[in-house]
Protein backbone atom coordinates (compact mmCIF):
# COMPACT_ATOMS: atom_id res chain seq x y z
CA UNK A 1 0.00 0.00 0.00
CA UNK A 2 2.77 2.38 0.87
CA UNK A 3 4.30 1.90 -2.56
CA UNK A 4 1.04 2.87 -4.19
CA UNK A 5 0.87 6.00 -2.03
CA UNK A 6 4.44 6.90 -2.94
CA UNK A 7 3.63 6.34 -6.61
CA UNK A 8 0.67 8.71 -6.36
CA UNK A 9 2.82 11.29 -4.56
CA UNK A 10 5.42 10.97 -7.29
CA UNK A 11 2.91 11.33 -10.11
CA UNK A 12 1.34 14.42 -8.60
CA UNK A 13 4.76 15.98 -8.12
CA UNK A 14 5.89 14.89 -11.57
CA UNK A 15 2.96 16.52 -13.34
CA UNK A 16 3.98 19.84 -11.81
CA UNK A 17 7.61 19.24 -12.73
CA UNK A 18 6.58 18.64 -16.32
CA UNK A 19 4.77 21.95 -16.43
CA UNK A 20 7.78 23.78 -15.00
CA UNK A 21 10.06 22.25 -17.61
CA UNK A 22 8.04 22.30 -20.80
CA UNK A 23 8.55 25.98 -21.65
CA UNK A 24 12.25 25.69 -20.96
CA UNK A 25 12.42 22.70 -23.24
CA UNK A 26 10.56 24.45 -26.04
CA UNK A 27 12.94 27.41 -26.02
CA UNK A 28 15.96 25.17 -25.88
CA UNK A 29 14.71 23.01 -28.72
CA UNK A 30 13.62 25.72 -31.11
CA UNK A 31 16.00 28.58 -30.34
CA UNK A 32 18.98 26.58 -29.12
CA UNK A 33 19.02 28.95 -26.15
CA UNK A 34 19.46 27.77 -22.56
CA UNK A 35 17.16 30.20 -20.84
CA UNK A 36 18.53 30.86 -17.36
CA UNK A 37 15.65 33.30 -16.85
CA UNK A 38 13.15 30.45 -16.74
CA UNK A 39 13.21 30.01 -12.95
CA UNK A 40 12.56 33.68 -12.36
CA UNK A 41 9.71 33.57 -14.90
CA UNK A 42 8.08 30.84 -12.84
CA UNK A 43 8.50 32.93 -9.70
CA UNK A 44 6.94 35.94 -11.41
CA UNK A 45 3.96 33.77 -12.37
CA UNK A 46 3.57 32.81 -8.72
CA UNK A 47 3.63 36.44 -7.62
CA UNK A 48 1.00 37.36 -10.18
CA UNK A 49 -1.22 34.56 -8.90
CA UNK A 50 -0.56 35.62 -5.33
CA UNK A 51 -1.52 39.23 -5.88
CA UNK A 52 -4.46 38.29 -8.07
CA UNK A 53 -5.77 36.18 -5.23
CA UNK A 54 -5.01 38.52 -2.36
CA UNK A 55 -6.08 41.75 -4.07
CA UNK A 56 -8.73 40.62 -6.55
CA UNK A 57 -9.82 37.30 -5.15
CA UNK A 58 -9.03 35.44 -8.37
CA UNK A 59 -8.38 31.76 -7.72
CA UNK A 60 -4.92 30.65 -8.93
CA UNK A 61 -6.57 28.09 -11.20
CA UNK A 62 -7.94 31.03 -13.17
CA UNK A 63 -5.01 33.40 -12.88
CA UNK A 64 -3.11 30.99 -15.12
CA UNK A 65 -4.45 33.07 -18.00
CA UNK A 66 -3.35 36.35 -16.48
CA UNK A 67 0.11 35.13 -15.49
CA UNK A 68 0.52 33.49 -18.87
CA UNK A 69 -0.44 36.64 -20.77
CA UNK A 70 1.87 38.89 -18.75
CA UNK A 71 4.80 36.54 -19.01
CA UNK A 72 4.20 36.05 -22.74
CA UNK A 73 4.57 39.79 -23.20
CA UNK A 74 7.70 39.88 -21.06
CA UNK A 75 9.23 36.95 -22.90
CA UNK A 76 8.34 38.30 -26.32
CA UNK A 77 9.91 41.66 -25.47
CA UNK A 78 13.12 40.13 -24.14
CA UNK A 79 13.56 37.92 -27.18
CA UNK A 80 12.64 40.57 -29.74
CA UNK A 81 14.62 43.32 -28.06
CA UNK A 82 17.71 41.53 -26.81
CA UNK A 83 18.27 37.88 -27.52
CA UNK A 84 17.37 38.10 -31.22
CA UNK A 85 20.39 40.34 -31.69
CA UNK A 86 22.76 37.55 -30.78
CA UNK A 87 20.67 34.55 -31.75
CA UNK A 88 23.20 33.17 -34.21
CA UNK A 89 26.04 33.44 -31.71
CA UNK A 90 27.59 30.44 -29.98
CA UNK A 91 25.97 28.71 -27.02
CA UNK A 92 28.04 30.58 -24.48
CA UNK A 93 26.99 33.99 -25.67
CA UNK A 94 23.26 33.43 -25.32
CA UNK A 95 23.76 31.52 -22.11
CA UNK A 96 25.83 34.25 -20.50
CA UNK A 97 23.30 36.79 -21.80
CA UNK A 98 20.33 35.08 -20.17
CA UNK A 99 22.44 34.60 -17.06
CA UNK A 100 23.09 38.34 -16.92
CA UNK A 101 19.43 39.09 -17.56
CA UNK A 102 18.47 36.73 -14.78
CA UNK A 103 20.79 38.50 -12.34
CA UNK A 104 18.92 41.69 -13.19
CA UNK A 105 15.39 40.31 -13.14
CA UNK A 106 15.84 38.18 -10.04
CA UNK A 107 17.48 40.98 -8.10
CA UNK A 108 14.68 43.30 -9.19
CA UNK A 109 12.12 40.76 -7.98
CA UNK A 110 13.93 40.55 -4.66
CA UNK A 111 13.90 44.32 -4.28
CA UNK A 112 10.25 44.58 -5.31
CA UNK A 113 8.77 41.75 -3.26
CA UNK A 114 11.49 41.08 -0.63
CA UNK A 115 12.65 37.56 0.06
CA UNK A 116 9.90 36.88 2.59
CA UNK A 117 8.02 33.72 1.80
CA UNK A 118 4.36 34.13 0.93
CA UNK A 119 1.67 31.59 0.30
CA UNK A 120 -1.74 31.60 -1.29
CA UNK A 121 -4.18 30.40 1.34
CA UNK A 122 -7.42 29.41 -0.22
CA UNK A 123 -10.56 30.41 1.60
CA UNK A 124 -12.06 27.09 0.58
CA UNK A 125 -9.33 24.50 0.14
CA UNK A 126 -10.41 21.21 -1.35
CA UNK A 127 -8.60 19.25 1.34
CA UNK A 128 -7.68 15.61 1.01
CA UNK A 129 -9.68 12.58 -0.01
CA UNK A 130 -8.90 9.01 0.86
CA UNK A 131 -9.59 6.61 -1.97
CA UNK A 132 -8.95 2.97 -1.19
CA UNK A 133 -6.44 3.80 1.48
CA UNK A 134 -4.57 6.25 -0.77
CA UNK A 135 -4.52 9.85 0.36
CA UNK A 136 -5.18 12.30 -2.46
CA UNK A 137 -4.36 15.94 -1.68
CA UNK A 138 -7.03 17.37 -3.96
CA UNK A 139 -5.63 20.85 -4.62
CA UNK A 140 -2.34 19.30 -5.64
CA UNK A 141 -4.10 16.79 -7.81
CA UNK A 142 -6.16 19.46 -9.57
CA UNK A 143 -3.07 21.62 -10.04
CA UNK A 144 -1.26 18.65 -11.51
CA UNK A 145 -4.12 17.82 -13.86
CA UNK A 146 -4.27 21.42 -15.01
CA UNK A 147 -0.51 21.38 -15.51
CA UNK A 148 -0.74 18.31 -17.69
CA UNK A 149 -3.70 19.78 -19.57
CA UNK A 150 -1.71 22.94 -20.31
CA UNK A 151 1.20 20.90 -21.52
CA UNK A 152 -1.16 18.97 -23.77
CA UNK A 153 -2.62 22.23 -25.02
CA UNK A 154 0.82 23.49 -25.96
CA UNK A 155 1.37 20.27 -27.88
CA UNK A 156 -1.89 20.82 -29.75
CA UNK A 157 -0.93 24.40 -30.56
CA UNK A 158 2.36 23.25 -32.02
CA UNK A 159 0.78 20.49 -34.05
CA UNK A 160 -2.41 22.15 -35.23
CA UNK A 161 -2.07 25.91 -35.40
CA UNK A 162 -0.43 27.94 -38.15
CA UNK A 163 2.06 29.54 -35.79
CA UNK A 164 2.74 26.14 -34.26
CA UNK A 165 3.63 24.72 -37.66
CA UNK A 166 5.88 27.73 -38.26
CA UNK A 167 7.67 27.07 -34.96
CA UNK A 168 8.17 23.44 -35.83
CA UNK A 169 9.42 24.41 -39.29
CA UNK A 170 11.93 26.87 -37.83
CA UNK A 171 13.06 24.26 -35.39
CA UNK A 172 13.75 21.77 -38.15
CA UNK A 173 15.51 24.17 -40.48
CA UNK A 174 15.47 27.91 -39.89
CA UNK A 175 16.94 28.78 -43.28
CA UNK A 176 14.46 26.70 -45.20
CA UNK A 177 11.64 28.17 -43.16
CA UNK A 178 12.87 31.67 -43.99
CA UNK A 179 12.87 30.78 -47.66
CA UNK A 180 9.29 29.61 -47.30
CA UNK A 181 8.36 33.09 -46.13
CA UNK A 182 8.40 32.52 -42.38
CA UNK A 183 9.53 35.55 -40.39
CA UNK A 184 12.09 33.64 -38.35
CA UNK A 185 12.85 36.35 -35.82
CA UNK A 186 9.20 36.81 -35.09
CA UNK A 187 8.78 33.08 -34.65
CA UNK A 188 11.71 33.13 -32.23
CA UNK A 189 10.08 35.90 -30.23
CA UNK A 190 6.75 34.08 -30.14
CA UNK A 191 8.44 30.84 -29.13
CA UNK A 192 10.32 32.53 -26.32
CA UNK A 193 7.07 34.21 -25.32
CA UNK A 194 5.32 30.84 -25.27
CA UNK A 195 8.11 29.42 -23.11
CA UNK A 196 7.65 32.30 -20.67
CA UNK A 197 3.87 31.83 -20.82
CA UNK A 198 4.22 28.22 -19.75
CA UNK A 199 6.57 29.29 -16.97
CA UNK A 200 4.06 31.88 -15.79
CA UNK A 201 1.20 29.39 -15.90
CA UNK A 202 3.28 26.85 -13.99
CA UNK A 203 4.15 29.52 -11.44
CA UNK A 204 0.49 30.31 -11.02
CA UNK A 205 -0.33 26.68 -10.23
CA UNK A 206 2.69 26.31 -7.98
CA UNK A 207 1.58 29.28 -5.90
CA UNK A 208 -0.88 26.86 -4.31
CA UNK A 209 1.83 24.45 -3.32
CA UNK A 210 5.21 26.01 -2.73
CA UNK A 211 6.06 29.07 -0.63
CA UNK A 212 6.62 31.99 -3.01
CA UNK A 213 9.93 33.83 -3.02
CA UNK A 214 12.50 35.02 -5.57
CA UNK A 215 14.85 32.56 -3.92
CA UNK A 216 12.90 29.62 -5.34
CA UNK A 217 13.98 30.43 -8.90
CA UNK A 218 17.20 28.43 -8.82
CA UNK A 219 15.35 25.32 -7.69
CA UNK A 220 12.85 25.65 -10.54
CA UNK A 221 15.63 26.20 -13.02
CA UNK A 222 17.62 23.15 -12.00
CA UNK A 223 14.42 21.11 -12.06
CA UNK A 224 13.79 22.23 -15.61
CA UNK A 225 17.31 21.17 -16.56
CA UNK A 226 16.93 17.73 -15.08
CA UNK A 227 13.51 17.13 -16.57
CA UNK A 228 14.63 18.21 -20.04
CA UNK A 229 17.65 16.01 -20.12
CA UNK A 230 15.67 13.11 -18.65
CA UNK A 231 12.93 13.32 -21.21
CA UNK A 232 14.83 14.62 -24.20
CA UNK A 233 15.52 18.14 -25.26
CA UNK A 234 13.05 20.33 -26.94
CA UNK A 235 10.19 17.92 -27.07
CA UNK A 236 6.87 18.44 -25.36
CA UNK A 237 6.32 14.75 -24.87
CA UNK A 238 9.83 14.44 -23.51
CA UNK A 239 9.19 17.09 -20.87
CA UNK A 240 6.01 15.33 -19.84
CA UNK A 241 7.67 11.93 -19.54
CA UNK A 242 10.77 13.45 -17.93
CA UNK A 243 8.73 15.32 -15.35
CA UNK A 244 6.66 12.33 -14.34
CA UNK A 245 9.75 10.13 -14.27
CA UNK A 246 11.60 12.59 -12.06
CA UNK A 247 8.68 12.90 -9.65
CA UNK A 248 8.46 9.13 -9.26
CA UNK A 249 12.22 8.68 -9.00
CA UNK A 250 12.49 11.35 -6.28
CA UNK A 251 9.61 9.92 -4.30
CA UNK A 252 10.93 6.38 -4.35
CA UNK A 253 14.48 7.62 -3.85
CA UNK A 254 13.46 9.41 -0.67
CA UNK A 255 11.59 6.33 0.52
CA UNK A 256 14.25 3.75 -0.26
CA UNK A 257 17.50 5.60 0.40
CA UNK A 258 16.34 8.36 2.72
CA UNK A 259 15.15 11.89 2.14
CA UNK A 260 18.62 13.42 2.31
CA UNK A 261 19.63 11.59 -0.86
CA UNK A 262 16.55 12.34 -2.96
CA UNK A 263 18.29 15.04 -4.98
CA UNK A 264 21.56 13.17 -5.33
CA UNK A 265 19.68 10.28 -6.91
CA UNK A 266 18.00 12.41 -9.53
CA UNK A 267 21.20 14.22 -10.46
CA UNK A 268 23.21 11.01 -10.54
CA UNK A 269 20.66 9.47 -12.84
CA UNK A 270 20.88 12.50 -15.02
CA UNK A 271 24.62 12.11 -15.46
CA UNK A 272 24.25 8.45 -16.41
CA UNK A 273 21.58 9.34 -18.90
CA UNK A 274 23.69 12.10 -20.41
CA UNK A 275 26.60 9.76 -20.83
CA UNK A 276 24.73 6.82 -22.24
CA UNK A 277 21.67 8.31 -23.84
CA UNK A 278 22.09 12.06 -24.33
CA UNK A 279 18.88 12.29 -26.33
CA UNK A 280 16.84 11.45 -23.25
CA UNK A 281 14.37 8.73 -22.40
CA UNK A 282 12.16 9.57 -25.34
CA UNK A 283 15.01 9.76 -27.82
CA UNK A 284 14.41 11.80 -30.92
CA UNK A 285 10.73 11.06 -30.97
CA UNK A 286 8.09 13.56 -30.03
CA UNK A 287 9.86 16.52 -31.51
CA UNK A 288 6.73 17.83 -33.14
Amino acid at each position, binding site marked *: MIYLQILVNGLVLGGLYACIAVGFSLV*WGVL*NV*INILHGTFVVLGSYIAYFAYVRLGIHPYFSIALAGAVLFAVGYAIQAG*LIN*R*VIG*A*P*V*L*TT*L*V*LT*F*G*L*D*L*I*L*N*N*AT*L*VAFSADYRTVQLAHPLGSKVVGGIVLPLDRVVAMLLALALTGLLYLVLVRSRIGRAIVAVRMDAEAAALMGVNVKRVYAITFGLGALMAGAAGSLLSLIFPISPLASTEYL*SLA*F*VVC*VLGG*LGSILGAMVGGLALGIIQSFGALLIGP*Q*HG*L*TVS*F*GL*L*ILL*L*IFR*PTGLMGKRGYE
Partner: protein
Amino acid sequence: MIRTLPVLVVIALIAALPVFGDNYLLRLGTMFAMYAVLAYSWNVIGGFAGYPSFATAAFFGLGAYAGALMQGAGVPMPFAWASAGIVSAVFALLLGFAILHLKGHYFAIASLVIAQVLMEIATSWSSFTGGGTGLNLPVLRISIEAQARLFFWSMLALAVMAFLMNVAVARTRFGFALTCIRQNEDASAMVGINPTLYKVAAFVCSAVFVGAAGAMYASWVFYIEPGDVFRVLVSVKPIVMVMLGGAGTVLGPGIGALLFLVLEEVVWRSFLSVHAMVLGVIIVALIFFLPRGVLGLVRRRKAAKVPAFSPGRSA
Protein backbone atom coordinates in the same frame (compact mmCIF):
# COMPACT_ATOMS: atom_id res chain seq x y z
CA MET B 1 56.30 37.18 -30.91
CA ILE B 2 55.71 37.12 -27.22
CA ARG B 3 57.62 39.74 -25.38
CA THR B 4 58.82 38.25 -22.18
CA LEU B 5 60.08 41.34 -20.47
CA PRO B 6 56.80 43.24 -19.97
CA VAL B 7 55.20 40.07 -18.65
CA LEU B 8 57.95 39.56 -16.13
CA VAL B 9 57.71 43.18 -15.06
CA VAL B 10 53.96 42.92 -14.54
CA ILE B 11 54.29 39.70 -12.57
CA ALA B 12 57.06 41.19 -10.45
CA LEU B 13 54.94 44.28 -9.84
CA ILE B 14 51.99 42.23 -8.72
CA ALA B 15 54.21 40.06 -6.54
CA ALA B 16 55.50 43.19 -4.84
CA LEU B 17 51.98 44.08 -3.71
CA PRO B 18 52.69 43.28 -0.02
CA VAL B 19 55.21 46.14 0.04
CA PHE B 20 52.60 48.84 -0.45
CA GLY B 21 49.32 47.21 0.40
CA ASP B 22 47.43 46.44 3.57
CA ASN B 23 45.88 43.06 4.29
CA TYR B 24 42.70 43.85 2.49
CA LEU B 25 44.54 44.75 -0.67
CA LEU B 26 46.42 41.50 -0.33
CA ARG B 27 43.11 39.72 0.00
CA LEU B 28 42.02 41.29 -3.26
CA GLY B 29 45.33 40.36 -4.82
CA THR B 30 44.85 36.77 -3.72
CA MET B 31 41.36 36.85 -5.15
CA PHE B 32 42.71 38.18 -8.43
CA ALA B 33 45.29 35.41 -8.59
CA MET B 34 42.57 32.85 -7.90
CA TYR B 35 40.33 34.30 -10.58
CA ALA B 36 43.27 34.24 -12.98
CA VAL B 37 43.84 30.55 -12.23
CA LEU B 38 40.20 29.78 -12.95
CA ALA B 39 40.12 31.90 -16.10
CA TYR B 40 43.38 30.54 -17.54
CA SER B 41 42.32 27.01 -16.79
CA TRP B 42 38.95 27.44 -18.43
CA ASN B 43 40.60 29.07 -21.41
CA VAL B 44 42.26 25.79 -22.39
CA ILE B 45 39.03 23.85 -22.76
CA GLY B 46 36.63 26.71 -23.40
CA GLY B 47 38.80 29.16 -25.30
CA PHE B 48 41.22 27.03 -27.33
CA ALA B 49 39.11 23.89 -27.74
CA GLY B 50 35.79 25.75 -27.79
CA TYR B 51 34.00 23.41 -25.40
CA PRO B 52 31.55 25.34 -23.20
CA SER B 53 32.65 23.76 -19.94
CA PHE B 54 30.80 24.46 -16.70
CA ALA B 55 32.91 22.00 -14.79
CA THR B 56 35.11 24.60 -13.09
CA ALA B 57 32.98 24.51 -9.94
CA ALA B 58 33.24 20.72 -9.85
CA PHE B 59 37.05 20.80 -10.01
CA PHE B 60 37.26 23.70 -7.59
CA GLY B 61 34.94 22.16 -5.02
CA LEU B 62 36.52 18.76 -5.36
CA GLY B 63 39.94 20.30 -4.81
CA ALA B 64 38.67 22.30 -1.84
CA TYR B 65 37.21 19.23 -0.17
CA ALA B 66 40.19 17.02 -1.03
CA GLY B 67 42.56 19.62 0.41
CA ALA B 68 40.43 20.27 3.48
CA LEU B 69 39.98 16.59 4.30
CA MET B 70 43.67 15.87 3.80
CA GLN B 71 44.68 18.80 5.98
CA GLY B 72 42.19 17.63 8.56
CA ALA B 73 43.92 14.24 8.49
CA GLY B 74 47.25 15.91 9.18
CA VAL B 75 48.72 16.15 5.67
CA PRO B 76 50.98 19.23 5.49
CA MET B 77 49.43 22.13 3.62
CA PRO B 78 51.58 22.22 0.44
CA PHE B 79 51.15 18.47 -0.08
CA ALA B 80 47.42 18.80 0.42
CA TRP B 81 47.32 21.49 -2.27
CA ALA B 82 49.35 19.44 -4.73
CA SER B 83 47.33 16.30 -4.06
CA ALA B 84 44.08 18.21 -4.49
CA GLY B 85 45.29 19.30 -7.92
CA ILE B 86 46.03 15.68 -8.79
CA VAL B 87 42.65 14.51 -7.48
CA SER B 88 40.87 17.03 -9.69
CA ALA B 89 43.04 16.13 -12.67
CA VAL B 90 42.31 12.42 -12.30
CA PHE B 91 38.63 13.19 -11.91
CA ALA B 92 38.76 15.29 -15.08
CA LEU B 93 40.50 12.47 -16.90
CA LEU B 94 37.77 9.98 -16.08
CA LEU B 95 35.00 12.50 -16.56
CA GLY B 96 36.49 13.65 -19.85
CA PHE B 97 36.23 10.20 -21.39
CA ALA B 98 32.64 10.02 -20.22
CA ILE B 99 31.24 13.36 -21.34
CA LEU B 100 33.55 14.88 -23.94
CA HIS B 101 31.78 13.03 -26.72
CA LEU B 102 28.83 15.33 -26.02
CA LYS B 103 28.61 18.52 -28.03
CA GLY B 104 27.38 22.03 -27.42
CA HIS B 105 24.51 22.29 -24.99
CA TYR B 106 24.67 18.68 -23.97
CA PHE B 107 28.27 19.07 -22.92
CA ALA B 108 27.50 22.33 -21.15
CA ILE B 109 24.69 20.73 -19.18
CA ALA B 110 26.63 17.59 -18.36
CA SER B 111 29.53 19.62 -17.01
CA LEU B 112 27.12 21.84 -15.07
CA VAL B 113 25.31 18.91 -13.56
CA ILE B 114 28.56 17.29 -12.43
CA ALA B 115 29.10 20.15 -10.01
CA GLN B 116 25.51 19.78 -8.79
CA VAL B 117 25.99 16.06 -8.17
CA LEU B 118 29.20 16.66 -6.26
CA MET B 119 27.46 19.36 -4.24
CA GLU B 120 24.63 17.02 -3.33
CA ILE B 121 27.09 14.29 -2.39
CA ALA B 122 29.12 16.67 -0.25
CA THR B 123 25.90 17.88 1.40
CA SER B 124 24.40 14.49 2.14
CA TRP B 125 27.53 12.55 3.06
CA SER B 126 27.70 14.19 6.45
CA SER B 127 29.94 11.66 8.15
CA PHE B 128 32.75 12.28 5.66
CA THR B 129 32.35 15.87 4.52
CA GLY B 130 30.52 17.46 7.41
CA GLY B 131 27.43 17.84 5.20
CA GLY B 132 25.63 21.14 5.13
CA THR B 133 27.43 22.08 8.35
CA GLY B 134 30.63 22.58 6.39
CA LEU B 135 34.22 21.87 7.31
CA ASN B 136 36.63 23.85 9.42
CA LEU B 137 40.30 23.72 8.59
CA PRO B 138 43.15 23.77 11.05
CA VAL B 139 44.07 27.35 11.90
CA LEU B 140 47.59 28.42 10.99
CA ARG B 141 49.76 29.50 13.89
CA ILE B 142 51.48 32.37 12.10
CA SER B 143 50.77 36.10 12.15
CA ILE B 144 47.96 37.58 10.03
CA GLU B 145 50.41 39.46 7.87
CA ALA B 146 52.43 36.35 7.24
CA GLN B 147 49.26 34.43 6.37
CA ALA B 148 48.11 37.11 3.98
CA ARG B 149 51.47 37.10 2.21
CA LEU B 150 51.72 33.33 2.17
CA PHE B 151 48.37 32.85 0.48
CA PHE B 152 48.89 35.72 -1.89
CA TRP B 153 52.22 34.48 -3.16
CA SER B 154 51.08 30.87 -3.29
CA MET B 155 48.01 31.75 -5.29
CA LEU B 156 50.03 34.05 -7.53
CA ALA B 157 52.53 31.26 -8.18
CA LEU B 158 49.63 29.05 -9.20
CA ALA B 159 48.31 31.77 -11.48
CA VAL B 160 51.70 32.12 -13.13
CA MET B 161 51.78 28.37 -13.69
CA ALA B 162 48.33 28.48 -15.24
CA PHE B 163 49.48 31.36 -17.43
CA LEU B 164 52.59 29.48 -18.54
CA MET B 165 50.38 26.52 -19.34
CA ASN B 166 48.43 28.76 -21.69
CA VAL B 167 51.64 30.02 -23.31
CA ALA B 168 52.78 26.44 -23.75
CA VAL B 169 49.45 25.40 -25.23
CA ALA B 170 49.40 28.33 -27.62
CA ARG B 171 52.93 27.68 -28.85
CA THR B 172 52.83 23.96 -29.36
CA ARG B 173 51.06 21.48 -31.55
CA PHE B 174 48.66 20.99 -28.64
CA GLY B 175 47.21 24.45 -29.17
CA PHE B 176 47.07 23.96 -32.91
CA ALA B 177 45.19 20.71 -32.39
CA LEU B 178 42.69 22.33 -30.03
CA THR B 179 42.11 25.19 -32.45
CA CYS B 180 41.46 22.65 -35.19
CA ILE B 181 38.98 20.87 -32.97
CA ARG B 182 37.22 24.12 -32.24
CA GLN B 183 36.97 25.05 -35.87
CA ASN B 184 35.96 21.67 -37.19
CA GLU B 185 36.22 18.62 -35.06
CA ASP B 186 35.43 16.15 -37.81
CA ALA B 187 37.99 17.63 -40.15
CA SER B 188 40.66 17.67 -37.44
CA ALA B 189 40.87 13.90 -37.58
CA MET B 190 41.88 14.16 -41.21
CA VAL B 191 44.98 16.19 -40.41
CA GLY B 192 46.08 13.45 -38.09
CA ILE B 193 44.67 14.78 -34.82
CA ASN B 194 43.01 12.43 -32.39
CA PRO B 195 40.26 14.68 -31.06
CA THR B 196 39.34 12.56 -28.06
CA LEU B 197 42.90 12.46 -26.80
CA TYR B 198 43.45 16.18 -27.16
CA LYS B 199 40.08 17.10 -25.70
CA VAL B 200 40.64 14.96 -22.64
CA ALA B 201 44.11 16.41 -22.24
CA ALA B 202 42.66 19.92 -22.44
CA PHE B 203 40.00 19.00 -19.90
CA VAL B 204 42.66 17.71 -17.51
CA CYS B 205 44.65 20.91 -18.04
CA SER B 206 41.55 22.89 -17.14
CA ALA B 207 41.20 20.93 -13.88
CA VAL B 208 44.60 20.49 -12.32
CA PHE B 209 45.30 24.08 -11.25
CA VAL B 210 41.66 24.71 -10.39
CA GLY B 211 41.77 21.78 -7.97
CA ALA B 212 44.90 23.12 -6.34
CA ALA B 213 43.35 26.59 -6.20
CA GLY B 214 40.30 25.10 -4.48
CA ALA B 215 42.48 23.52 -1.82
CA MET B 216 44.42 26.73 -1.40
CA TYR B 217 41.18 28.65 -1.10
CA ALA B 218 40.00 26.25 1.61
CA SER B 219 43.20 26.80 3.60
CA TRP B 220 42.91 30.51 3.04
CA VAL B 221 39.33 30.97 4.26
CA PHE B 222 39.64 27.94 6.61
CA TYR B 223 35.96 27.14 6.35
CA ILE B 224 34.19 25.56 3.39
CA GLU B 225 30.65 24.43 2.75
CA PRO B 226 29.18 22.65 -0.28
CA GLY B 227 26.96 25.55 -1.30
CA ASP B 228 29.98 27.82 -1.53
CA VAL B 229 32.69 25.87 -3.32
CA PHE B 230 30.36 24.12 -5.76
CA ARG B 231 28.18 27.10 -6.58
CA VAL B 232 27.31 27.68 -10.22
CA LEU B 233 28.90 31.11 -10.08
CA VAL B 234 32.31 29.51 -9.66
CA SER B 235 31.79 28.05 -13.14
CA VAL B 236 30.22 31.13 -14.66
CA LYS B 237 32.66 33.77 -13.42
CA PRO B 238 35.74 32.47 -15.27
CA ILE B 239 33.71 32.31 -18.48
CA VAL B 240 32.69 35.94 -18.09
CA MET B 241 36.30 36.86 -17.30
CA VAL B 242 37.64 35.14 -20.39
CA MET B 243 34.95 36.72 -22.54
CA LEU B 244 35.79 40.05 -20.94
CA GLY B 245 39.45 39.70 -21.79
CA GLY B 246 39.34 37.75 -25.04
CA ALA B 247 38.82 34.04 -25.48
CA GLY B 248 41.51 31.77 -26.87
CA THR B 249 44.25 34.32 -26.27
CA VAL B 250 47.11 34.17 -23.83
CA LEU B 251 46.66 37.59 -22.28
CA GLY B 252 42.86 37.79 -22.33
CA PRO B 253 42.07 35.67 -19.27
CA GLY B 254 44.49 37.60 -17.07
CA ILE B 255 43.13 40.94 -18.17
CA GLY B 256 39.58 39.65 -17.84
CA ALA B 257 40.23 38.36 -14.32
CA LEU B 258 41.60 41.72 -13.26
CA LEU B 259 38.79 43.72 -14.84
CA PHE B 260 36.18 41.40 -13.43
CA LEU B 261 37.60 41.66 -9.94
CA VAL B 262 37.68 45.44 -10.16
CA LEU B 263 34.12 45.60 -11.46
CA GLU B 264 32.88 43.15 -8.88
CA GLU B 265 34.58 44.95 -6.03
CA VAL B 266 33.48 48.43 -7.10
CA VAL B 267 29.91 47.32 -7.71
CA TRP B 268 29.79 45.36 -4.46
CA ARG B 269 31.01 48.39 -2.55
CA SER B 270 28.78 50.90 -4.22
CA PHE B 271 25.46 49.08 -4.25
CA LEU B 272 24.32 47.47 -1.05
CA SER B 273 21.52 45.20 -2.18
CA VAL B 274 21.32 45.64 -5.92
CA HIS B 275 24.89 44.75 -6.82
CA ALA B 276 23.76 41.54 -8.54
CA MET B 277 21.54 43.65 -10.78
CA VAL B 278 24.37 46.01 -11.67
CA LEU B 279 26.65 43.07 -12.39
CA GLY B 280 23.92 41.68 -14.64
CA VAL B 281 23.71 44.95 -16.53
CA ILE B 282 27.46 44.90 -17.02
CA ILE B 283 27.39 41.33 -18.30
CA VAL B 284 24.58 42.13 -20.73
CA ALA B 285 26.37 45.26 -21.92
CA LEU B 286 29.50 43.20 -22.41
CA ILE B 287 27.70 40.78 -24.71
CA PHE B 288 26.42 43.58 -26.88
CA PHE B 289 29.26 46.06 -26.87
CA LEU B 290 32.36 44.02 -26.27
CA PRO B 291 31.67 40.63 -27.83
CA ARG B 292 35.33 39.86 -28.43
CA GLY B 293 36.59 41.14 -25.12
CA VAL B 294 39.07 43.90 -24.36
CA LEU B 295 41.73 42.33 -26.54
CA GLY B 296 39.29 42.23 -29.43
CA LEU B 297 38.79 45.97 -28.95
CA VAL B 298 42.52 46.65 -28.88
CA ARG B 299 43.06 44.50 -31.93
CA ARG B 300 40.31 46.17 -33.85
CA ARG B 301 41.86 49.54 -33.12
CA LYS B 302 45.17 48.34 -34.40
CA ALA B 303 43.36 46.91 -37.39
CA ALA B 304 45.37 43.77 -37.04
CA LYS B 305 44.18 40.81 -39.02
CA VAL B 306 43.59 38.41 -36.20
CA PRO B 307 41.01 35.75 -36.82
CA ALA B 308 38.09 36.23 -34.49
CA PHE B 309 37.72 33.57 -31.89
CA SER B 310 34.39 32.56 -30.60
CA PRO B 311 34.12 29.89 -27.98
CA GLY B 312 31.53 27.19 -28.20
CA ARG B 313 31.38 27.15 -31.99
CA SER B 314 30.92 23.44 -31.95
CA ALA B 315 27.35 23.88 -30.76
